[in-house]
């Protein structure tokens, strides 16, 4: 749990937290392609990016400790709404879905710009935003760009790879950040953007009741104009990067899974399969 030191500043320590959530194709299902070889995202079932669950969990723990509000923000096509319900069932208070065909094809710079405009809108509505949290990366694109890029658009400090939020006190947040071979402890002035690496947070599993309550929570859908997005900076044409080619990765995993309550038989089958495939363990 987070250490709470609210003596110095009791009333203003209530936190307005924005959590950025990306609806992603279900990692458990194989990707689908259009005839031209590009990914057919629209026909794939969308779920909440697993890494964003850690960010949601961190936000909820902060709210439970200090009071405040947790607002989810996503940029996605309208059929992503089921994925957002997952976050609401976990305990996010309300959700904003930025959805606009003009945003399709946005790369990370364009996406972070669009998301930052939603945060700005919330900022003026709520009077302040203290923290913007997101998962360290998404399970489909794995860029880890959105957190630091959103921070840059908002002119805020950011810390990526946050393992744990250690303390919130006097307008500062102290975090443990993962680095090669160890960690750093960093103190950052709020408002700040943190990307959560997840190792210290176990996402809560919603009960049936949570799921039902989540259906009554508000999801506000906004378009680009609602948050004053300059549409020349988004979408395929507003994005500096272009995907010129996609192809199946060379490494195709065999995916042979052995399940047997008789472990001797399981090992027999496994070793026999290795022999068949010509794989030598030594």
């Amino acid at each position, binding site marked *: 749990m987070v250490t709470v030191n609210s003596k110095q500043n009791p009333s203003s320590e209530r936190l307005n937290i924005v959590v950025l959530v990306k609806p992603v194709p279900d990692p458990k299902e194989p*990707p689908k392609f259009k005839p031209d070889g590009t990914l057919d995202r629209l026909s794939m079932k969308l779920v909440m990016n697993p890494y964003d669950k850690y960010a949601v969990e961190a936000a909820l723990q902060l709210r439970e400790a200090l009071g405040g509000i947790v607002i989810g923000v996503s940029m996605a096509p309208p059929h992503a709404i089921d994925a957002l319900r997952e976050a609401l069932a976990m305990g996010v208070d309300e959700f904003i879905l930025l959805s606009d065909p003009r945003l399709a094809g946005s790369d990370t710079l364009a996406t972070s710009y669009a998301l930052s405009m939603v945060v700005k809108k919330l900022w003026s509505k709520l009077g302040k935003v203290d923290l913007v949290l997101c998962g360290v990366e998404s399970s489909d694109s794995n860029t880890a760009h959105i957190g630091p*890029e959103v921070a840059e658009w908002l002119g805020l*400090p950011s*810390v990526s*790879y946050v393992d744990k939020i250690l303390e919130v006190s006097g307008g500062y947040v102290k975090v443990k950040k993962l680095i090669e071979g160890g960690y750093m402890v960093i103190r950052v002035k709020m408002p700040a953007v943190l990307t959560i690496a997840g190792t210290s947070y176990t996402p809560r599993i919603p009960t049936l009741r949570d799921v039902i309550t989540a259906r009554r929570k508000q999801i506000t859908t906004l378009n680009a104009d609602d948050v004053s997005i300059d549409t020349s900076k988004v979408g395929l044409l507003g994005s500096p*990067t272009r995907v010129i080619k*996609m192809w199946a990765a060379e490494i195709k995993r*065999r995916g042979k899974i*052995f399940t047997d309550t008789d*472990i001797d038989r399981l090992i027999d089958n496994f070793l026999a399969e290795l022999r068949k495939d010509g794989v030598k363990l030594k």
Partner: protein
Amino acid sequence: MSKIFVYAEVVEEGIAEPSLELIGRARELADKHGFSVSAMLVGFGVRKLADELIYRGASEVHVVDNEVLSKYNLLFYTRAIVEVVENEKPDIFLFPATTTGRELAPRVAARLGTGITADCTAIEIGDYVDPITGKKYEKLLYQIRPTFGGTIMAAIVTPNHRPQMATVRPGVYSVPPRDTSRSGRIKEWTIDFSEEDVGCLEVLEVKRERRKVDLRSAKIIVSGGRGARPEGFKLIRELAELLGGEVGASRAAVDAGWISYDHQVGLTGQTVKPDIYIAVGISGAIQHVVGMKDSKIIIAINKDPEAPIFRIADYGLVGDLFVIIPKLIERLKVAKS
């Protein structure tokens, strides 16, 4: 001449290896396609490391050496890099895909308003014709990376914005040889940080272990995770020894103190690609997977059939490792004798 910039990350022992790998790769591309290679060195007391970058292949080193940079500070580092880039206007800017590179590079990119591609596993130079406008571009940076959980590869370009930026995964290129006969230009920059808010982002503590074991040349690695527990690591060591392999670990196992950091595989550990990687009691969190997913064959042993590690495994054994491994060792010993 168009310039390739490489960010020279500094760690206690000197220039971080992933940055040297990038200097080497940039040199190869530069020689073939007619670019120059410059290194960007930021920190305090780092001026003395500039020669090393030249010996490894840089023809120019831009140094920002300032006391306020003695501890890593994302905001100050971004500021320093952006100022040099705005003056020098490199065509390409490469960062290592370390935890530092992957937070610093996107901030620099966003401030410059340019595109960036994360965690590339290859970089090449090539031409591009815009299918919409028909405009032809020469010698663009091809930023090649896996996407969609590693099942798809994508080649990405940044046609109209400069610099073209990418972070590149450690270990995909080798550290170039050190040639002390090479010479180059060192340019020192003075940047005024007096307006900056020092307290906005402050590193209070750094704990970092140096690595003594090199897993990258191992043909077989048997790795343990959270599910292995200390007793499991005894079995893992025994299996590794029997197979003539090395022992690896996930960050969870290292943090729990069951094994030293030297053995850690993953984002904050080593990137390995052995012939056979056996993941024992490892769930398959992305931080671990990025360090081993290019292994030729992956074998996973885990009692949770839903564990993500099975999705990237060639062979998955669902069951209790404390039952499976002793029996496997027994069978392999019999086969041996």
